[in-house]
């Protein structure tokens, strides 16, 4: 399909994209013909990606499993209505996104989350505001072991979980699934500009939390 992280058919670009589209079209025709082996091929290509996306949206393994089941059943039952205007993978991601969001909203009410307090602030002259030690810290140079430590991952997971659903969704589609901004926009049904803005805010908010964790010490701001 698309995206840097996807394997084989999913990871192709440029000329490979034509091969990928043709492979997907052939798969669609086999699915329409009720070919059981085609369903297996579909699972091999997309089950993990659907699960991973569903897991990141729902943050719950059991819910993610149910989403995977729902999505594949929906795709197989509705394959005749797939018109091919979008790529098959895009359609599957859209079905998955909707199913996962419904599952997520059934579990937890989202109460007016705002990222404003987690975004950088600036002085009137355009420089960043805040403690100079905090503003200049470059933890990207931190040894890899620290960055991959359980504590850092837990902090990052919590920070991702705390994002508003729509921000987490574009972040996962872009930075986990590897879709382009244009592909993400197609999946979520919004403009590229809206996707880019929301994605950037999500990344800045996560960066802020990681900096408080890995930086020169808690600055107390939130």
């Amino acid at each position, binding site marked *: 399909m698309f995206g840097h*992280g996807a394997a084989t058919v999913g990871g192709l670009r440029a000329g490979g994209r034509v091969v990928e589209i043709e492979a997907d079209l052939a798969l669609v025709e086999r699915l329409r013909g009720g070919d059981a082996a085609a369903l297996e091929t579909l699972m091999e290509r997309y089950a993990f990606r659907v699960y991973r996306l569903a897991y990141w949206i729902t943050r719950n393994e059991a819910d993610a499993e149910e989403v995977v089941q729902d999505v594949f059943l929906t795709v*197989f039952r509705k394959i005749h209505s797939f018109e091919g205007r979008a790529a098959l993978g895009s359609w599957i991601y859209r079905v998955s996104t909707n199913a996962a969001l419904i599952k997520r909203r059934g579990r937890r009410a989202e109460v007016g989350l705002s990222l404003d307090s987690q975004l*950088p602030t*600036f002085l009137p002259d355009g420089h*960043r505001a805040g403690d100079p030690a905090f503003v200049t810290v*470059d933890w*990207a140079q931190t040894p890899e072991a620290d960055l991959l430590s359980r504590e850092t991952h837990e902090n990052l997971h919590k920070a991702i979980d705390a994002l508003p659903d729509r921000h987490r969704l574009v972040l996962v589609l872009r930075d986990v699934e590897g879709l382009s901004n244009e592909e993400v926009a197609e999946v979520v049904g919004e403009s590229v500009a809206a996707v880019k803005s929301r994605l950037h805010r999500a*990344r800045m908010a996560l960066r802020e939390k990681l900096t408080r964790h890995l930086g020169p010490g808690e600055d107390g701001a939130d």
Partner: protein
Amino acid sequence: MARVTCRQFILDFLADYLDAKLCPEIAADLERHLAICPPCVAYMNTYKRTRELVGQTAPAEMPQEMKTILRRFLAEQLAKDKF
């Protein structure tokens, strides 16, 4: 472009700069700013690393038994569809 501020670099240009989506003239203006602004270099590096860490925290693999469960589920549901 007039002199770039930190605010402009971080809020307006950073993401596109890292994706190499900017025209060479604007990219050059940003690089002139980065050459004299260690805080923006630090912000860019940590923003980029944040993006990478997000990509690395995904679950490694769908549990193998899930595929078995999925196959069984689909077979049962599709068999019902035929009646």
